[in-house]
């Protein structure tokens, strides 16, 4: 098929960016969205033009490296699908596709479609762990965990840290990401001792990083490639409030 692309090109974080038009022929429906960009880049290199920079690694929807706005939607039109798993059979011959980077104050553009998401790592550093020294763990089956809790913890832990939730949110809020991280650990018995400190620390860090505040648009949930539920946000807020009451 033939596609008309409009891609955000920006040389570096301080340079101004703009949308550049390309026409790409012979795109197979079986190729992934990133393979379509590979094809474009191969042609650009052939013409002596600088290829488009985009982020990716696993290309199977699990590492969270990829992610672009496709016609205004984070990761594009397919539900629960990361950009690398989006296949071109979703588009039709002659379509125009606008491709832009994640946009958020806390995600500065590095170049073209690549942004800096280290702010999310810093949120995790502010309490997104259970303190356990290597080698000091008790026998694993000593603490039974109700299957329901364990399954729920997993639902939250499935977050791939791509940042689509932030990119889609009109406020650029990171509540879905942060609450998934908090929720995964706060629901487990192992996570109880640090529960409130965790909520307090991570929320404070999130605010300090410049993410916006949550006004319940729920757009984050809609674009999350792992289908993380906004219910986690309510749970985090509860833990955060309790932490406040405890003076943490």
């Amino acid at each position: 098929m033939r596609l008309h692309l409009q891609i955000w090109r920006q040389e570096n974080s301080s340079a101004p960016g703009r949308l550049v038009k390309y026409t790409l022929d012979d795109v197979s429906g079986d190729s992934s969205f990133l393979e379509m960009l590979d094809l474009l880049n191969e042609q650009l290199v052939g013409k002596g033009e600088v290829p488009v920079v985009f982020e990716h690694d696993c290309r199977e929807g699990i590492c969270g490296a990829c992610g672009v706005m496709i016609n205004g939607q984070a990761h594009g039109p397919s539900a629960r699908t990361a950009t690398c798993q989006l296949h071109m059979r979703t588009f039709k011959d002659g379509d125009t596709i606008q491709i832009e980077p994640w946009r958020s104050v806390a995600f500065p553009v590095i170049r073209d479609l690549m942004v800096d998401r280290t702010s999310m790592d810093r949120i995790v550093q502010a309490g997104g762990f259970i303190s356990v020294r290597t080698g000091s763990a008790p026998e694993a089956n000593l603490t039974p965990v109700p299957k329901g809790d364990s399954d729920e913890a997993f639902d939250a832990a499935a977050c791939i840290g791509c940042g689509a939730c932030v990119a889609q949110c009109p406020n650029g809020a990171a509540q879905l990401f942060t609450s998934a991280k908090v929720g995964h650990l706060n629901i487990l018995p192992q996570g109880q001792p640090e529960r409130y400190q965790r909520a307090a620390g991570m929320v404070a860090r999130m605010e300090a990083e410049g993410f916006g505040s949550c006004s319940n648009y729920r757009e984050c949930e809609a674009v999350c490639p792992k289908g993380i539920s906004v219910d986690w946000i309510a749970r985090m807020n509860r833990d955060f409030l309790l932490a406040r009451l405890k003076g943490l």
Partner: protein
Amino acid sequence: MNLQSKIPAGPLADKWTNHRDHLKLVSPANRRKFKIIVVGSGLAGGAAAASFGEMGYNVECFCFQDSPRRAHSIAAQGGINAAKNYRNDGDSIWRLFYDTIKGGDFRAREANVYRLAEVSLEIIDQAVAQGVPFAREYGGLLDNRSFGGAQVARTFYARGQTGQQLLLGAYQALAKQIAAGTVKMTPRTEMLDLVVEDNRAQGIVVRDMITGEVRSHAAHTVVLATGGYSNVYNLSTNAIGCNTTAIWRAYRRGALFANPSFGQIHPTCIPQAGEHQSKLTLMSESLRNDGRIWVPMKTDETRAAGQIPESERDYFLERKYPAFGNLVPRDVASRNAKTVVDEGRGVGPMKNGVYLDVADAIPRLGRETIEERYGNLIEMYQRITGENAYSTPMRIFPAPHYTMGGLWVDYNLMSTIDGLFVIGEANFSDHGANRLGASALMQGLADGYFIAPYTVANYLSAHLGEEVGASGDAFRRTAEEVRQRTEKLLAVNGSRSVDSFHRELGRIVWDDCGMERVAQGMQQALAKIPALRDKFHQDVRVLGSGAELNQELERAGRVADYFDLAELMCRDALHRDESCGCHFRAEHQTDEGEALRHDDQFSYVAAWEHVGDGQEPRMHKEELSFEFVQPSQRSYK
């Protein structure tokens, strides 16, 4: 060079304990005086860096992704083994050891493999304490399943995302240390060389992938945890960025490369759909627990799967291996799939796959159970192929997946360069000629959490008080060489893209040094690879400059190293005139078509030494002696 494996004496079950009891220690007050560089933040590197940090060492950790959480360990699906015997089905450390060494077709060290089985118990404890949400039973205790080639249920799993969950555990432990200031994490940084002086590792030279700046870092010891090199085949299940550069550069600086041709081809991947494809996606082989593998009896079959009656289907694994059926080891499953496809009985538009069918399991277990076990895999399959596996069998075909080969290390995980440790998939240590399913995660974490912290301390204890710095001659020289290599790639300004070369190289290695190998093919490859490499260095086109973010340049550097590695792989595979595990030489097979080993000639590790450009590398042998098990011919009938 005399390869000293440093395997401790004594009974197998006591070796590690005795050894650990006698390793030298560094006192808590002295630890922060030591600088440790860890390259890689996957299960091996992440676990090691977090553990070193928590012990109080001064750690610097590097990865090429934007976050340590994205290392390719994240993609592991199926599970992790441990000899907990929670199922009371007769599992034990000995049995996990025996299965692993037998699975490796008796080309690994007994002592290493035993130690791995031993520490597997602690890994599960550690992960659970970190909050890794492994699957549980209704009683709240941990669930297990049986996994490729094992007759006991010893695999722990977290839906189909075990690697992700284990890596998040290690990443979170690492995050804690980063916050505490014991670990300095430097992402988006690629190691491009190792600095060695007097055969001792002094540090590394890296390129900042955003600014292009080439920098040097010095340390008392360097730990490489840079993963596997299956991407030499271009199409593999590895992430696009997986590379050999770190270990290849170490090889060129004096570390021996062991068994480079031992690579595993995973049986259950989605077949290639066309030229444009950039990677192959793995479907966890846990699917083989409940899925049946078959192809049509006839070669010219045109009917859809559902229309082919039972009597005209060939469940070839169940037919040939009644005892193990669909659960035969990976190499056996892969080779048999290749055989039926070569016979013209392949399925799918390109006739390049075999069916993996869960239809029989749905009425037996209920759709809900199938969804719970495999839902995410079936969804992924649908996204990629557009087909629904509940109604049409999936199509699968083998793909390069894991490299057992890697830098040679002794029992302490130290390479032949003093102070250079290699852990995880990057070393060669534990899997022999074939790795059993769910044992790479185990090895990465064993190395990172439970072995390196002891053995690296032992090494450091002898270097207390030594100053390190990156200003010496060796650093200047090495950094200059890195700059020159980059300049050279940019200066070619030819007509072909890096990817086009990688595709062509991958095809050669896949055809001649892939699932089935013959002497003549490898000899041809040994002529074709250098010729293509010459073309690459004359005709590759890398635009832009080195002093900026340049993804083409990154790729070009990696592919350049893959050329050299591919040559060494073929040389290694050619010299090993026997079959063993995944190394299947068509000239050497039993009457039943199984790998036929020649223990009298090849019961050794082949460790290759770089002796200079344009010269044939020198091979050193580490003889393998089997004191505790009797090497047998594998049979899965």
